[in-house]
């Protein structure tokens, strides 16, 4: 058998600069695509994890008439005696944490400045509140029996120039449709790394929030985190009860799921465009090579090389270019993704709403699947693109090729 790769390697070596530039185009394309894939995956992963962790959880148990957009604390929309139900749910194996939360709308005011916030009454020791407890940057976290303490986010603290120990006035819409106001002391300031969320939420112990909003012994939701979010439907089916609904994370985050699907399609289009451009470079390189080597193709044909062997020779050249270019690009793309997966890319507060929370810093995330699929696709596109010049070479009539006519 002819060693096509040996011949191909030498042919590429004839025009080292041109071959290197072609391989470089492939390398840049592959590295860029790999980084874009890692960025998108990191972004979607971060958005999904952050939204689930901070906002919706994997499951929420609500009164069947509860509307999460209104944040009403009228008793008819709330769950009564939520502690017992939460404890029962938390005892299930797939459940990591289940905790009642009371959600009310309010206004924080300090001196002559104010900001609208969501007041969240929480059970401080619950595992579900770890992102806030672990995210304390100043002061300390609240305790269940604290009657005057409040936890606020770092962006809110900065905008109102507040520090731990400072006092604030908090206004709340109560269950009877009235408003109440009370002074609280900032016990601690937290950050979750998601400014869009942190600037709009404050935490009180559940008992204090219930008393403040006159929603005694009631909660808006039972917030549930699972060990594996894929078990959401199964657990939701197991905890159905009369007068309540159980919403899964996919139901609560339809927009996010849609965006995730869309981002895959978007990524596929970008891949197609970039690979199309790099494939054009390869086609161009091989076409030039075919034109320059017309006579040589004629000689090979005259001594008995068949069309498919000529095709194999040019495909071997394309494969070598692809191997070198895509290989180098994949290494560079992987290195970039690994680096920005550690240090992240800072975007700040992107101002995206609660339906799609994004951390201020996006950490690239590259899965083996997507890396392999990109490498294989790039290789196939390159080799397929080279079929055109290869077939052109194979179809040359030997007598014309020998005279240098294409």
């Amino acid at each position: 058998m002819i060693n096509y790769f040996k011949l191909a390697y030498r042919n590429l070596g004839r025009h080292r600069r041109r071959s290197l530039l072609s391989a470089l185009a492939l390398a840049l394309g592959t590295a860029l695509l790999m980084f874009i894939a890692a960025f998108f995956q990191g972004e979607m992963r971060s958005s999904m994890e952050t939204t689930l962790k901070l906002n919706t959880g994997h499951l929420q148990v609500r009164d069947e008439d509860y509307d999460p957009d209104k944040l009403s604390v009228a008793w008819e929309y709330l769950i009564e005696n939520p502690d017992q139900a939460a404890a029962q749910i938390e005892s299930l194996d797939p459940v990591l944490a289940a905790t009642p939360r009371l959600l009310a709308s309010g206004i924080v005011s300090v001196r002559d400045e104010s900001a609208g916030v969501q007041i969240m009454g929480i059970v401080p020791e619950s595992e579900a509140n770890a992102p806030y407890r672990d995210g304390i940057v100043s002061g300390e976290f609240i305790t269940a029996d604290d009657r005057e303490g409040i936890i606020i986010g770092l962006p809110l603290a900065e905008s109102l120039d507040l520090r731990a120990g400072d006092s604030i006035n908090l206004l709340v819409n109560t269950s009877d449709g009235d408003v109440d106001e009370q002074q609280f002391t900032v016990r601690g300031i937290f950050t979750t790394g998601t400014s869009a969320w942190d600037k709009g939420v404050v935490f009180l112990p559940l008992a204090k929030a219930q008393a403040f909003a006159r929603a005694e012994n009631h909660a808006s939701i039972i917030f549930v985190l699972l060990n594996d979010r894929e078990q959401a439907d199964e657990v939701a089916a197991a905890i159905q009860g009369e007068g309540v609904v159980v919403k899964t994370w996919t139901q609560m985050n339809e927009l996010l799921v849609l965006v995730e699907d869309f981002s895959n399609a978007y990524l596929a289009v970008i891949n197609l465009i970039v690979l199309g451009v790099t494939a054009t470079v390869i086609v161009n390189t091989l076409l030039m090579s075919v034109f320059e080597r017309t006579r040589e193709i004629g000689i090979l044909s005259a001594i008995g090389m068949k069309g498919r062997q000529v095709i194999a020779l040019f495909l071997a050249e394309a494969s070598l270019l692809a191997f070198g270019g895509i290989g180098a690009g994949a290494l560079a793309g992987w290195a970039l993704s690994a680096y920005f997966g550690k240090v992240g890319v800072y975007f700040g507060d992107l101002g995206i709403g609660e339906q799609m929370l994004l951390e201020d810093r996006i950490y690239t995330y590259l899965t083996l699947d997507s890396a392999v699929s990109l490498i294989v696709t790039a290789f196939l596109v390159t080799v397929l693109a080279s079929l055109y010049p290869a077939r052109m070479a194979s179809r040359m009539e030997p007598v014309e090729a020998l005279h240098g006519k294409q």
Partner: protein
Amino acid sequence: MEVAKLTNVTRVYKIGEVETRALNGVSMAISDGEFTSLVGPSGSGKTTLLQLIGCLDKPTSGSVIIGGQETTNLSRNQRADLRKGTIGFVFQFFALIPTLTAYENVEMPLLLNGKTPAQRKQRVMELLEAVDLADRGHHRPDQLSGGQQQRVAVARALSTNPKMILADEPTANLDTANGEQVMEIMKKLNKETGVTFVFATHDPRVIKYASRVVTLEDGVIVKDTKG
């Protein structure tokens, strides 16, 4: 025994609206072991005739039989197969593959014929010795003189033990000494191996070696001299 037989062969080239009749009803036979020169002025049709005998081209009409096989209806791949086992070529422009060494150039037809590494090595060394280039095997074409390159081309043409070697103006780009040397080698190989040689040439240095001279003018054979 005839290695090639052409009967009433016509070849017309059409470029745009213009038709050029390169060969016009040529008939001839080439016997085993001949050392034949096709001569004639430029445009007389000698290269076209050589290309038809070599199955590099198809006639517009007429019959071309090579080694007993009618070739006019063969596909491109079938013609490639026939060339691979039956015909060797030497071209005017030292037609070697520039990225391959002299050794590898001679080896290429053997690779295409599926010979084993041991068979290839033995045959290539034999041939490089026969053309007096055994010590130049690892040189690339650009490291060889024109005469040396043409000798490598002769060795390559002979590598598969073809029935016939076709040479188109083999000395046209060589000085007198190198031209003579190439012709001497070919004549010697013709005598030793019995392989048939057919040249297209107008070089008197080549014609003097020929055992048969076929003269063409305007696409027809005007003279056929043996002896």
